[in-house]
Every structure is written in C-alpha cells, then in structure tokens.
C-alpha cells in the first residue's frame, strides 16, 4: 500500500484541507473558507505533537506519544487507517518524502527515523539516526537527501541520507532547539529556540552547507515554530508570548505581529500556497486565519475543547 495510491486519481485529494489537533485527543478537519468543522477524528491516549498532510493530500499523519497515526481524509472513518509504533517516547515531528516514498520522524527517544510505509515489501528503507538529546525538530531539505535534526541540547545535526555522515551546528549554547524550517527554494534555513531567538543560515553548494547569516531576537519567550512561506519571502515564528510574527526574508525586518485578545500560546502556523493567508493554532483552542498583507483576522475555527498544538494545511493551486 503506497501513500501515493491516489496520486494519479486526484479526486478529493486535490482539495483544500485544514487539519488541527491538540490536547483534547481529537483531530479536526475544517472547511477552511467557511470555518465549519467537517469531521472529527479520534487520536486516543495522547495529545497531537505535529500534523502533516501526505503529498497527495489523501491522508494526514499525526504524531503523539509512542505512535504515528495516519488518517484517511477522504473517508468518514474517525479512526486511523495506519498506526506506526515501536517508539518508546513522544514523537515530536513527522514529515514525508516529496513523492511519499518514505516518512521521517523525530522524537524524545533521541532518534530521527525513516519509516517505510509500504511494509512487507522486499526492499525496506527503514533507517535510524541517534543523537545525544531528545529531538524536538526534524525537517527534510527540498533536495530530499538531508534531514536537519534539532535537539534539546541545542544542537542541529545535519544528517546526510546518502552518506550517513553528519555535521553539527550549535547556534546558541544551552538553548533547546524548538523548530527548524527550510525555505521551499532550499536556500535558507531557520531555527528557533526556547529563549525566543531565531537563527538564520544560507544553504549553498551540493550537498548544501549551512552558513550562519543572522540572529533575530524574535520573541522574548519560548519560541515554538518557524515556517517559510511558499514564495520564501516570509518567515513566521510563533511563541509562548501569545503572538505569531512575520519576518521579511529580504532584510529580516518585522513585517507583522499577529495578536488577538484571547489568543494564547501560538503552537503552529501554516501559509496558503499564494503566501497571502496564514493559519495559526493556539492554546485558547481556536485556530485563526489571518490576511498577511492587511494583518486582519479573517476566520476563526472553534470546536476544540483544549489547546490546539498542531495544524496542517494543504492548499491547491488553481
């Protein structure tokens, strides 16, 4: 069973999908433009640490304590269709190869892993990468051969999948790396830490080598996520200071600060494909849609009983 089974058929998989999950052990699928909750899926026994929609848009992967579960977005099934297990601790991040050939995760068991979702095949591509501290962030370079692994001791490990060699970056001593992002063009990398600082590198060469470029005092509290917009012109950082901040990648100036009276910790964010809109998910159990240019709140998504800690958005180009 390939993750890309429905790739050719397109169908429902090509639609716009907003998925949120959090502490209330549910995952919700929303109609993004109206704000109506379409479905609620069950994520038993654990909070949702991260969500990622498969490249085909057919499924969403949710990682939590000891499990990575995959839900079919096209059916009405409230239960997962696949369950990846065998990890002893929290799985903090999940992501996919651009064609869905394999899945990568990072977790508090101090590992980054590559999973073969087509289990039972002759050729398995299962791999494991051990680091000395619990892993908070993993991200795949768009060239599909390097995985950046950020751990709680503050080290970013550059894991080359082809050579199995690895390099280390230590942007700030004794500050836990909370999230890493690589711009879709593959030329920029950003990482945020628990001090609220954001570090930026340029990536040059083949294979790409990170060169320190910039430090941003992004937030004065715990930073939680960072993400580049699809056109690589913006970086969003979210934080425990109840805000999401948008930075221009051209000169690293602050473009906009997104706050709301009731908004609390902002755990996750996602851009629309035209970089015009930004979704955020917060501890006040609301997800929000912002117009980036105007800085206005366009939609709110209410339905979760507890904080939203993860969201995933899949847009469709027209």
């Amino acid at each position: 069973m390939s993750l890309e089974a429905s790739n050719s058929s397109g169908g429902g998989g090509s639609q716009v999908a907003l998925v949120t999950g959090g502490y209330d052990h549910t995952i919700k699928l929303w109609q993004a433009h109206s704000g109506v909750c379409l479905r609620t899926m069950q994520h038993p026994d654990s909070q949702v640490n991260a969500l990622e929609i498969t490249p085909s848009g057919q499924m969403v992967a949710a990682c939590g304590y000891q499990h990575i579960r995959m839900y079919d977005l096209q059916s009405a099934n409230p239960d997962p269709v696949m369950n990846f297990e065998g990890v002893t601790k929290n799985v903090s991040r999940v992501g996919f190869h651009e064609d869905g050939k394999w899945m990568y995760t990072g977790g508090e068991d101090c590992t980054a892993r590559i999973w073969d979702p087509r289990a039972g095949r002759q050729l398995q591509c299962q791999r494991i990468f051990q680091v000395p501290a619990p892993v908070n962030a993993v991200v795949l370079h768009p060239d599909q051969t390097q995985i950046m692994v950020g751990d709680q001791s503050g080290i970013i490990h550059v894991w080359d999948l082809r050579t199995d060699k690895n390099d280390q970056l230590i942007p700030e001593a004794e500050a836990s790396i909370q999230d890493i992002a690589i711009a879709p063009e593959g030329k920029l990398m950003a990482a945020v830490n628990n001090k609220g600082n954001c570090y930026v590198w340029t990536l040059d060469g083949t294979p790409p080598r990170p060169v320190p470029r910039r430090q941003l005092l992004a937030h004065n509290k715990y930073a939680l996520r960072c993400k580049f917009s699809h056109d690589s012109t913006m970086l969003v950082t979210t934080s425990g200071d109840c805000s999401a901040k948008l930075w221009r990648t051209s000169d690293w100036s602050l473009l906009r600060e997104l706050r709301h009276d009731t908004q609390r910790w902002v755990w996750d964010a996602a851009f629309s494909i035209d970089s015009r809109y930004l979704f955020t998910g917060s501890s006040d159990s609301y997800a929000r849609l912002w117009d980036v240019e105007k800085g206005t709140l366009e939609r709110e998504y209410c339905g979760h009983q507890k904080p939203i800690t993860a969201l995933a958005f899949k847009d469709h180009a027209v």
Partner: protein
Amino acid sequence: MATYDNKIWLLKNIREAFIATDDTGLCEIVMAGEDFSKLFQNKALEDKKRIREGQLSQPSTSRVKEGMGDISEDDDEKEIVTQFDPYPDMEDSEEEYGSSYLRYEEFGGHRQRSNTAQWLDKKEQALKKAAKIKVIKWDDSSTQLSTEQIAEIFTRSEVKKPENKKSLLAEQMEKCPDLPHRQYLEYAKFDGTAQMGLPVKSFKIFMTMLPEKHQNYPLVVCVIANAKIKDLIGFTCYKYSIEHPEISLGSVHNYGLCIAEDDGEVDWAFPCLDINEPCSKFGFTCLGLVELKNKHVFAHAPLSIPEESMLEVFPKAGESGQSHQNPSRQHTGGSATSEAVRKAINAVNQERKVAESELDKIQSHLNATDAPQYKTYRVHLLRKVRTNTLVQLGISLERIEVEPLVAHKHQFWSRSKYFRLNIDSVAWCQILEARANKTTFRLVYSPSNSNYYCDPNNSGGTSFFPPSTVYKIYDFECEHEMAREIVDKINTILDLRNSPCRREYKTSKEKKTQTRRSFQTRHLS
C-alpha cells in the same frame, strides 16, 4: 476499619473500586492479569504447601509429635506463616476476600450484564476496530541497507524555484465573504458529535420563532452534557445558520428554550429554562426555541453595555426589538437602544475609564450628597430554592423597597410580592463575590427591629446570629458597576443614620473578629 491492615483485602478492594467505577472498561483491561490479591493468596498457599512437604520429608522431627496425639492438618497449616500471608490469623475463605465493592446499579431490580461480558464486548469491538487499522511496527532487526540500496532510494531531486500560484483557498474566501454562523462561533465548541470521551446530550429543538414553513422538522442537536442552556441556545443558532444560511437569526440573547411536546407545541405553562443551568439537569428532550419578546417571563439576566467588538459580533442585537437592559448608572430604565446611542455610551464609558482617577475623588463626594436621594435599580433577587427574580430595588433615606418586575402569571411556585425594609432595620450591606459578569451583594437586616413587612413565607431570608438579635439576609445580583454603586449608596445612608440596629451588628461583628484573632494568636504562640 478493622481490616485496613489486610493487604489482600485492600488490594482487592482498590482494584474492584477502579473496575466498578470506570465506565470505559479501560481499568479492567489495564489491570487484567494483575490481580495481586489473588497472586498473593496463591503464593501463600504454595509456600504453605512447600513448607508442609518439607516438614513431612523430615520424619525424625515431624514424627516426634505423633506421640502427642493427632494434630490435624488444618492446625498444622495455620501455624505455617509465610511472607505472603497478609493476615496470618484470618481464614482465607472466598467469602472473606469476596466482592467487597458492589456497584450501585446492582442493587436495582434487574442485574446488569456482568463486567466480564461487558469487557468481552469491548474487547471484541476493539479487535474489530484494530483489524481495520494497519499496524506497522518499527523493526529493529532489519538489516543495514547497502550503499547501492541507499543510492537507489535516497536520490537527490532537483530543487525547483516554486512558481507563483493562485490559491484555491483565496478563491473560496472571495466567493464566501458572508458568514451567517460566525456570530455564534463561540458556541461551536459545545458540539457533542465531535467529542471523545465526554458525556453528551441530544435534543430535538423546534424553531418556533421562525415562520411556520420552517417549523416542520425539529433540529436535532447534540451538545456536551455540561453545556448550559444558553450554550445550547447558541449552538442551536450556530447549527441552524450553517444548515440554513439563507435564514437570519437574531442574537442568542433574544431567545429562550421552553419545554415542548413531541409535535413542537410549546408548553407555555412553564417558564423558559434557566439559561445558566447545565442542560444535563433537564430530562426533557423536546424543546422549543422561542423569541423572548413574545414571552411573559423574563428569563435572562440584564445585558451589560456591549463593547465595540460585541457590536460587531452580534450585528442584529440592536434591531431585534427585544428591550435591552442597560444597568449602567446612566440607563437604569432599559429601553430599546439604538446603535448610535450605544456607541455614544461606549464613548462615554471610554472617557470615564481614562478619567477614572480624578473622578474617583469627585465620586466619593457625590455619593455622599447623592446617597439620600431616592433611586431605583434593576437587580436579581437570589433565592435558595426557587428561581431568581428580577426586581426593582428602590433605595431612599427612609427605606429600601423591593418590587418584583415580572408578573408571574404562570410561575405558580415563585409568587413573590412587594416588600420593603425600614432603613433603620438594615444592619449591613456588602459585596459578596464578583464573578465574570455579575456581582453578588448582601443585605443584612433585623426583622424584629422595625415595622418592616414582606411576603409571608420570608423568601430567601435565612437566619443566623442566634439567639440575641436575629439577623436575616437578602442576596442580590447585578452587573459589577451597579452593585458597587448600590452598596456604596446603602452604606453611606447607613452611616448617616447610624441606627441602633447597625451599631449592634457592627459591635457583634467586631467582637467576632477579635475572638478569632486572639484565638489565632494564642495558637500561634
């Protein structure tokens, strides 16, 4: 309890309490095979057996006893004490350790299905569910990939510069600018169909306030059980406006929920359900959503002046025809207020916030001079057993009057009457507690002290301070600002009058605090 030091009994009891009170059955699954009380019992038996066999195999020592007559095996066994024996001198009969925890349902007429049967059912369901889920386990034994394999699987792909795309989301957003349900969005979280592990409750709701053609079918709504009636109203509006975006509903404050028949006929003999009660409290499943202006009963609390943001969220609030209660000090009257007026009030409120500090000084002076003037307020009289009633509280230098504002034609159980208190019988007035949008304040008075009269059954009055002077209380509730004003006003008047009743109350109160303080210091030293 005498058996508290019995390890087996305790283990068994705790285990059974967990299993019996856990409706999900998870406890039983988790603890399956871990019945330690049984394990201990079995171990104790085994040990005894082993020890006894050991003794039997040592004829020289055990046979000595033969001469002293028959020692029964039972006696023998009793004397053997093992480390697993929790309670050496207790008979280990099944009754002793038997079910000590009974589930209350089992006391009823017919017995529930056994825990085992339920557990088996749950297990079967879980298995069925699990069969549909493909489980992929991390395989630690899998062999290392060869360099060729790695090169084959982990190929480098060319990074393309993403072209500028037009987003489907943006297109949909443009096509769908109007969101009728957005004003009720905050109620979406009460949706009972989208929860996991939370108790829910379903209602059939007839939209009686809509034109007849829309009333044919009830709206079935399912909310989480601890949602309040006002949340149920809000969620009903939310759900209805999603399903029927062409019909515009008013503000949730305009609606109440009444008991209805199966056919949607509202039972007007009963008042609207109290909007602050959880809906799990009510057994009715058929309810009618009614517009409050058509009702004789005033079932909701007065609204405070909406802030600017509120005006946006509830754009129709002003035009509904429902009279808004504006309990701010400028507008105790309560008439339908136009948008412009409310904006003006907002502006005034804003200014007041800014100039608060200066105003405070002037205010205290004004209070003193204004206090004796007769003034009325709309507040809720709180009652212990019955519903709270909206009353007009009139305060003057002479007396405090309480006049119910609603003609309770149908509320036969809460016929409250006009009553008044001589100001000299009032001993104390203070704010009790301030909650999110309401403040409760208390009036202490002495019924023996004056020519006061009130409704014959002394509604709400609870006596305390026995036995010398009997004091009674009335509790009221209203919006913060007003409560503070009322309490200030009454206290100013009370201080002006300084009646014997007030002096007496004050003295007794002081005495009480002193005793408490001396008691504390004694204990601390």
